[in-house]
């Protein structure tokens, strides 16, 4: 044996490591070129849009690009300084600028996000900005006494930089106080934290129900002879081939007050005509329909894992003295864990971001956070929608991390 600490060389004296790297680099380059189109696709359609979305949640220049004079005054005077004549002069100059640029609405909208009722303050004040004469403080206060509100000054200070945490504040039911501090909004207006919690709880519940329903089905599929398993599999997959909207609407037909299920119950005399059960346009409806729609995502990974579990394991356990319950609990169940993990993660993540179904059948109390994200999108408040989405993304990533710590992501088996 030669000394193992000396670097090995090839026959012509090159270091073995270098030779190996050279030999593999061609293969590696080839592999990279094969992956490149997908990489490009993912970057363009996934990473860049998500990056832009996240940027929007912390960046809004609607006010800052129009209020340069105010920004200068805010820079010169620290937080908590009462607005003096110089500040109002800067405001007047900016309002004039906004009038000329026709941008008062846009700037006002940005302030309106944090202090409701101020958009019109900007548009109406900008309209009369030309007529403003010094002293500007009196002039502006005469125009609208809201200009004296320290809350508005605090909001303008926060908005004078395009980079802002305002949208995350709103998304966590918080608001800036007049002195620049942060407080929770009045209880009646708190919605986001609660809705996030509700979204996660409901999704967990739906995941749980899906697991309970999918486990026996998947087991049956995995143990039936191939021909019959395939037939049953088609039934499981059938919902996949139907439009989501059609499926959701069919549930409405089934579950509504005058719907099929209620009609049957009434005709059987199980419920009275006045006592028809409300199963849709509420949380129950959301849970039922989402469970149905997401069920295949639980069945498939479970099935693919269960199919690989040989029946001899169960037989071995029985022969070793285990009852059928012990066999299930200690032998079968642990072996299906990768499938359970994959299915649960898949269903949960899909449920957390689900939008159409709760919108259609959720009614008043079946709404999820995604419905509010959509609402803010439709109201052109993209920054808040982005902040809410950012938090949702964070929640899902957190969950993913937790799963990795508890179960191990390498154990994930998606089919």
């Amino acid at each position: 044996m030669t000394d193992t600490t000396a670097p090995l060389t090839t026959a012509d004296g090159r270091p073995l490591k270098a030779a190996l790297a050279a030999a593999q680099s061609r293969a590696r380059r080839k592999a990279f070129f094969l992956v490149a189109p997908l990489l490009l696709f993912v970057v363009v359609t996934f990473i860049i849009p998500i990056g832009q979305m996240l940027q929007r949640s912390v960046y809004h220049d609607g006010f800052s690009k129009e209020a340069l004079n105010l920004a200068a005054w805010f820079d010169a005077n620290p937080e908590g300084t009462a607005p003096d004549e110089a500040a109002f002069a800067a405001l007047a100059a900016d309002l004039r600028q906004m009038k000329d640029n026709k941008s008062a609405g846009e700037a006002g909208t940005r302030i309106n996000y944090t202090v409701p009722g101020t958009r019109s303050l900007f548009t109406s004040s900008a309209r009369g900005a030309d007529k403003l004469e010094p002293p500007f403080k009196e002039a502006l206060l005469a125009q609208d006494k809201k200009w004296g509100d320290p809350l508005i000054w605090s909001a303008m200070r926060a908005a004078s930089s395009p980079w802002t945490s305002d949208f995350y504040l709103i998304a966590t039911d918080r608001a800036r106080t007049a002195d620049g501090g942060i407080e929770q909004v009045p209880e009646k207006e708190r919605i986001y934290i609660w809705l996030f919690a509700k979204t996660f709880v409901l999704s967990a519940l739906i995941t749980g129900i899906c697991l309970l329903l999918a486990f026996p089905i998947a087991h049956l599929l995995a143990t039936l002879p191939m021909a019959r398993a395939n037939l049953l599999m088609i039934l499981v997959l059938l919902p996949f081939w139907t439009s989501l909207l059609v499926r959701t609407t069919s549930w409405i037909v089934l579950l509504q007050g005058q719907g099929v299920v209620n009609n049957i119950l009434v005709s059987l005399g199980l419920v009275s005509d006045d006592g028809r059960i409300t199963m849709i346009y509420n949380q129950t409806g959301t849970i039922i329909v989402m469970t149905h729609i997401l069920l295949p995502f639980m069945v498939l990974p479970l099935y693919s894992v269960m199919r690989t579990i040989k029946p001899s394991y169960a037989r071995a356990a029985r022969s070793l003295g285990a009852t059928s319950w012990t066999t299930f609990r200690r032998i079968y169940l642990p072996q299906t864990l990768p499938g359970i993990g994959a299915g649960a993660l898949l269903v949960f993540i899909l449920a957390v971001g689900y939008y159409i179904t709760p919108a259609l059948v959720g009614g008043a109390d079946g709404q999820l956070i995604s419905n509010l994200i959509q609402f803010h999108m439709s109201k052109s408040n993209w920054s808040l929608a982005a902040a809410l989405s950012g938090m949702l993304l964070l929640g899902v990533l957190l969950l993913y991390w937790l799963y990795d710590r508890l179960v191990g992501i390498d154990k994930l088996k998606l089919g």
Partner: protein
Amino acid sequence: MKKLLAVSTALTAIAAPALADVTVMSWGGSYATSQVEAYIKPYTAETGVKVNMVDADNPATPVKAMVEANNVTVDIADVEYADAIRLCDEGMLEEIDPAMLPPAPDGTPATEDFLPGALTDCAVSTIVFSTVFAYDTSKFPEGPKSIADFFDLEKFPGKRAMRKGAKANLEMALMADGVPAADVYATLETPEGVDRAFATLDKIKKDTIWWEAGAQPPQLLADGEVAMTTAYNGRIFAAAVTEGKPFAVVWDGQVYEYDLFVIPKGAPNLEEAKKFLAFATDTQRLADQAKWISYGPARKSSGALVGLFMDGKTEMGPHMPTSAENLTNALPSSYEFWVDRDSELNERFNAWLAAN
């Protein structure tokens, strides 16, 4: 980007017949048809000026693109209130002096003849559509009469449906609670006023289904899912008159909004456009449009002139949001209020909805 816009607008320009003296952009469908029948045909007959109609999904979008690209090919566009204000704020529209609009036949100046809020700096309203409440006449032979009845489950038991959102609902709730229409927005500006509106909504919350698309309320009524629902008046009219459904509209406490004509900045035929605008928004033209569609004219003086629906037997007057008897307790929706309060009140509304 600008180049792309220029190209696309240039293509639109090619598509438009070169002989047209005025080009109007509207929403297509039966609504555009009503405009052609009521405005364009008489105008051409009277003046010989050709007016061309082009369609868009939402005319505000191409108008904004055209103005930004400095290549405007449209003289008049039909837009929603929110867009009219926004585009005007952004300086993309010509300002319109109300003095150029013809007075009512009795000499009332246009500023007074148009319904409150129908004239803005840059836009002239043509029609009014309304959020009203409607009920199933087979369920209530002695139907509800006032907006308060909608919130009265004892007098009129049965499920309700409302639009899922704060707008119009809060106003209706306040009117039902006895706030005069004129004071509704002033009341809503105060926290106590908002609490008052939600307290009224609380009365029917447990029995209410929330709709989102305009097509849902007539369907909910037809399915028997609800006994009463808020809805856009045109949808109920269509279901009741065209499909013969037993639906009736209660106009008390209606909240109405406008659709408006605007002139984009840089319109190629500005003067002709103004003339057409004045003609199209006179008393007779607005009244004529009701023959083709169940939206109300934006002028008070047009109400009396509204005739029959195109089926030749339905008297349109009672179906108009703007007819005098329907306006006794009616509220023009305030765009200014809602741009200021939209997020705040919708957050409150959603929190209220979600709380059990």
